[in-house]
């Protein structure tokens, strides 16, 4: 039976009040805006405690079964909880690879044992998850992954390397794509999918220092690392299929996700509010005609993205160059974000040159760091240039 409007409305009131009351005070250090920015133990412990608190209050994994730590109610409730998290500006639920990708995958395709073993730890933040897909020589070319997994009795022996492992140094488990059969005629058929433990001898992580000076990703090395054979998901050779299912979740399919906001959304309005007291030529920067023109362009770009999202659901308005809106979404959204953050720094006046750590930096250097971090989205998951090629070839039919 579906919930009544009144039930949903009452729930919204309840969860909004809870968020207001429990929104943690400023911890005195910059919190990550996305789950890809968890750089040190202090941030990790803060976010772990926060996610645990949200889960304990019953506002995470609401649509997951009760016996696995969920609440077993319809997904509408989680959507409302997520909206209220955003609206109230609370910190992120950082265990995104578990909550949004691995969790839904296990819920959908996992065995009873796997569900019982993994799901609750994802929700209560005890078990951090990471993903081992990308390799140093195979960024976008996932099907060519070379990490070797060789069956030896009731174990697999792993040798090779992964890279760009988000929270690799904090993770207890990894969703991992490895090659079990290098002889397979199709490269895809030689791949298998593992729910691999990270804390075993032979798996080492080396944090990568990012452009921001902080950490968040690791290189992950596998040297004769032994993991139990029952860590394989499905059967040998099914890795590609399961990886594609995972990517569906990663690329934004919300169905099945445990919920929680995975990133702090920053909008043009936030930038404009921050600029209200900035002076240029002895006057408020917001009175400068050139700046005003730039800001209106930024507002329009953001509005166009939101309208495009609306239009993409209206069939008759998507028959000309069909598919262009969803396929160009990543390219457009990430490039817009990058440009907006760059503009925000540019408009700060001389203070735009300050960085995180300077006590006079605006919002603690929030925009400077955010600008640098925005490249993780214009590069990760297929660079903007690759995205443009995809759109050109699939939507416009241009030659490779």
């Amino acid at each position, binding site marked *: 039976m579906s919930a009544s409007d009144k039930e949903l409305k009452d729930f919204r009131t309840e969860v909004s009040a809870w968020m207001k009351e429990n929104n943690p005070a400023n911890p005195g250090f910059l919190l990550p805006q996305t789950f890809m920015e968890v750089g040190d133990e202090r941030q990790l412990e803060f976010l772990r405690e926060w996610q645990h608190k949200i889960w304990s209050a019953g506002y995470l994994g609401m649509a997951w079964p009760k016996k696995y730590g969920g609440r077993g109610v319809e997904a509408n409730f989680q959507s409302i909880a997520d909206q209220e998290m955003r609206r109230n500006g609370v910190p992120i639920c950082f265990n995104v690879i578990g909550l949004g990708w691995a969790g839904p995958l296990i819920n959908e395709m996992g065995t009873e044992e796997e569900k019982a073993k993994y799901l609750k730890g994802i929700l209560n933040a005890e078990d951090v998850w990471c993903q081992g897909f990308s390799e140093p020589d195979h960024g976008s070319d996932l099907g060519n992954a070379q990490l070797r997994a060789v069956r030896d009795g009731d174990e697999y022996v792993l040798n090779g390397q992964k890279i760009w492992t988000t929270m690799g140094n904090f993770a207890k488990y990894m969703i991992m794509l490895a090659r079990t059969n290098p002889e397979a005629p199709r490269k895809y058929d030689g791949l298998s999918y593992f729910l691999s433990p990270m804390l075993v001898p032979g798996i080492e992580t080396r944090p990568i220092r990012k452009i921001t000076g902080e950490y968040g990703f690791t290189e992950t090395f596998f040297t004769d690392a032994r993991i139990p054979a029952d860590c394989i998901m499905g059967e040998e050779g099914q890795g590609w299929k399961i990886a594609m299912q995972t990517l569906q979740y990663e690329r934004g399919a919300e169905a099945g996700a445990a919920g929680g906001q995975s990133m702090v959304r920053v909008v043009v309005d936030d930038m404009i509010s921050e600029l209200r007291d900035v002076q240029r030529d002895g006057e408020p920067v917001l009175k400068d005609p050139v700046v005003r023109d730039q800001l209106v362009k930024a507002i329009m770009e953001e*509005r166009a993205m939101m309208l495009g999202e609306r239009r993409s659901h209206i069939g008759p308005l998507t028959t000309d160059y069909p598919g262009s809106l969803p396929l160009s979404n990543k390219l457009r959204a990430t490039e817009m974000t990058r440009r907006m953050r760059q503009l925000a720094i540019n408009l700060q006046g001389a203070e735009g040159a300050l960085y995180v750590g300077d006590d006079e930096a605006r919002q603690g250097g929030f925009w400077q760091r955010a600008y640098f971090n925005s490249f993780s989205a214009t590069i990760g998951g297929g660079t903007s240039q690759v995205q443009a090629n995809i759109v050109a070839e699939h939507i416009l039919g241009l030659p490779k």
Partner: protein
Amino acid sequence: MSSPGNTALRFSEEQAMLLEVAREFCRNKSPIAEVRAQLETQDGFDQALWDEMVLLGWAGIAVPEACGGSGLGIGALIPVVESMGRAMLGTPLISSALAAQLLLRAGNSEQTERLLPAIAGGSPATVALLDNSDWGDETVSLLLDEERILHGSKKFVPDASVARMVVVSVLHQGEVALAIVRADQLNDGAIYPNTLIDQTKRSANVDFSGVLVDENNLITGPKVAEALRDTRLLGALLVAAEATGASAACLDTIVEYLKTRKQFGKLIGSYQALKHPTVDILTAMDSSRSFIYHAATLLEEGVVDADAEIACRMAKAHAVETLLYAGDRAVQFHGGMGFTYECDAQLYIRRAQWSQQQFGDAQHHRKRLAALLLD
């Protein structure tokens, strides 16, 4: 500050049907050869084709049913105008629609019931709003004296030579008013055609001096200023819708060439230097389309409120800059061919420059958006 995040976008079944019919009609009736055949004709369109459009009811889409139209509102006109732009099909449809809107918004019931049925029935009409060359200067200097005789002229009156009726903004007794002038009231030589950069369009400077305006063809009162303001915004939106269609057509032209032209042994569409800007045109055109239908949604009730004003201005600012970019790149990407009159890229680069100058250019609208969004 108005509500900063209005992102309403709806599309009715009626609009969807109009879009489908209009796109099909324009594609079939206005292939590029037909567009080119009209470039140097006096009126710039085929009367028989206009008659067909009138039979389809397009001239009366936004005219109330009581006045002989279908009463669907301006929102229903957007898919038609976009489709016309998609096929670069001229005709006095936009001019007539704006004349109807101005009458509808300022006139009394006697005037609308007398004048609108003719427009809905396909008798072309137009608006004369510009006293100088500055869309940002709303001063009206064309004088209507105490004897109701006009003194002065207007610039860039669209489709002036075919219009049977012109709605003119005038200064009367110190206030802005509207005068309705029939074509047969104009003196010989009063219409001085402009040589436009866009040869698919027609406009003229019109000297109204000496015309005696009938008493029942004068509109005065407080509604006039608001009706003029609304009509300018609707004009901006209709031009934006047309420019959106033209951008898509221009994109077709580019893509077709990139898929067939070879250089250095490769199809030029495989070069990222051409491929990526073409994707930029696609995504910009997508935004134009989202903006115009957003504005159409907010105009459902016909009222041009603050959100609708923002939407119209965004649509105009974005759609014309997109077409400017698309037309410019279309010429460049066609190489030597692009520099010729024979290449269709010229049609789009010319349309872009024309569209930019109608009802205020992109900067004009962004300047006004800044006041609406930032102050």
